[in-house]
């Protein structure tokens, strides 16, 4: 770890020289070859809502600005739409790298402003562990309650129910115990912490 001073603002920031190497190792994807042509950021549909553009995330990983990257909203907002990875002239697999960064953020207990998305994923996986399949009503109810936003989408939910798009009761798969084993085997990632 090294502390540097940002020339423009005078702010101090920590740099983790091994960060890029670690991200590459965990994701199995190369990112050093990115030369910042901005093609990814230009085509990214979610860029407008991100705090850092996709190529800026790659740049910050290259520079070792670990804390900024792992606490960014961008990594959580990426929709894995593969627009960037399809267009990148250097075959940088940004969506997979974003997944690795999210995983590292979770393992290091770093919350971003997108904590709601993290909660959603947790509720989703718990539902899957319990039933083996998704049950939208349980998922929606729990998620909206946990994020203290119980009335968002209530109207839409009622419309969907009337149209027969929501099953009131969940259905459980037969061998749900196999999922329990999968969760126990892979649930705690064996990957090294930073």
């Amino acid at each position, binding site marked *: 770890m090294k502390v540097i001073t940002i020339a423009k603002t005078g702010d101090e920031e920590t740099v983790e020289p091994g960060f890029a190497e670690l991200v590459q190792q965990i994701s199995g994807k190369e990112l050093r070859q990115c030369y910042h042509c901005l093609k990814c950021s230009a085509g990214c*549909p*979610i860029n*407008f*809502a991100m705090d850092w553009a996709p190529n800026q995330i790659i740049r910050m990983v290259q520079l070792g600005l670990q804390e900024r990257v792992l606490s960014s909203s961008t990594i*959580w*907002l990426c*929709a*894995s*739409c*593969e*627009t960037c*990875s*399809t267009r990148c002239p250097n075959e940088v697999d940004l969506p*997979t790298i974003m*997944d*690795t960064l*999210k*995983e590292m953020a*979770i393992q290091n207990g770093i919350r971003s402003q*997108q904590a*709601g*998305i*993290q909660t*959603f*994923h*947790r509720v*989703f*996986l718990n539902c*899957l562990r319990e039933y*083996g*399949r*998704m*049950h*939208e009503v349980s*998922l*929606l109810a729990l*998620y909206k309650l946990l994020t203290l936003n119980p009335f*968002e*989408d209530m109207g*839409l939910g009622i*419309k*969907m129910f009337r*149209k*027969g*798009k*929501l*099953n009131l009761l969940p*259905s459980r*798969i*037969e*061998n749900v115990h*196999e*999922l329990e*084993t*999968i*969760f126990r*085997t*892979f*649930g705690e*990632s064996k990957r090294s912490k930073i």
Partner: protein
Amino acid sequence: MKLSYFPGCSLDGTAKEYGSSTSAICQALGLELIEVPDWNCCGASSGHSTNYLLGQALAARNLILAEKQGLDMVVACAACFSRFKKTNIALKENAELRGKMEEIMGIPYKGSFQIRHLLDVIYNTVGLETIKKEVTNPLKDLRLVPYYGCVIVRPHELTQFDDEEQPQVIDNLIEAIGAESLPWSDKTECCGASLALTRVDIVKKLARGIVEMAKEAGAQAIATACPLCQANLDMRYGEDGLPVFYFTELLGLALGIEGKNWLERHITDPLPLLTSLNLVKGE
């Protein structure tokens, strides 16, 4: 022709009309779909976003069950399709993942079968010529834009199906069933996918943009092949949206299958449009 079939959670819930229209057209076109026994959710975004290996393991269970059926596998949901394609590669390359999953399931995995999106099977296996012959109710005067979204066609190395920037498959299908396919800008734009529930604001903005462009192109409706695309465009535009069809519903109508129980599930009611063009019988 027999195929192993992975419906996925949406086709059993919010996208029931995609599920039932898929069953109906496959039956009409001579495809026998045999559901993967005891399939589970593929893990979706929540799997790969929070624990990549767990996401792969959840998807892998389905691939192992499917391979045991001894058939090629067809997947209707674009997101499940993409997860399975990625996981199939991981199972072959990552011996640890494969070994652990084989042990849990008690079945070895070779990956000796194909994983295909439903659109690919309809287009490349059934083929346009057969479809044209089966059409009894051509969708005359219906102006559609084909919407592919993200991961059915990209990245090409993975999907190996159609062009990733300028796909044509849905365009050609639309023309084959007698409707008009309009050129437009947003064929492969992203609808915001799984941010649908967590960042409604973002998805609304994206969905609005896409539907606006469809309107500008002169479309009366949008044709899709993904439950997330359909849901986001159908539900997140608000008043005055366009009807958003699954390509299977359009195909079903053209094949003369009575599709009321699909069509009445849409949030943006497509019946006034279809009735006005005499494509379904009025009340």
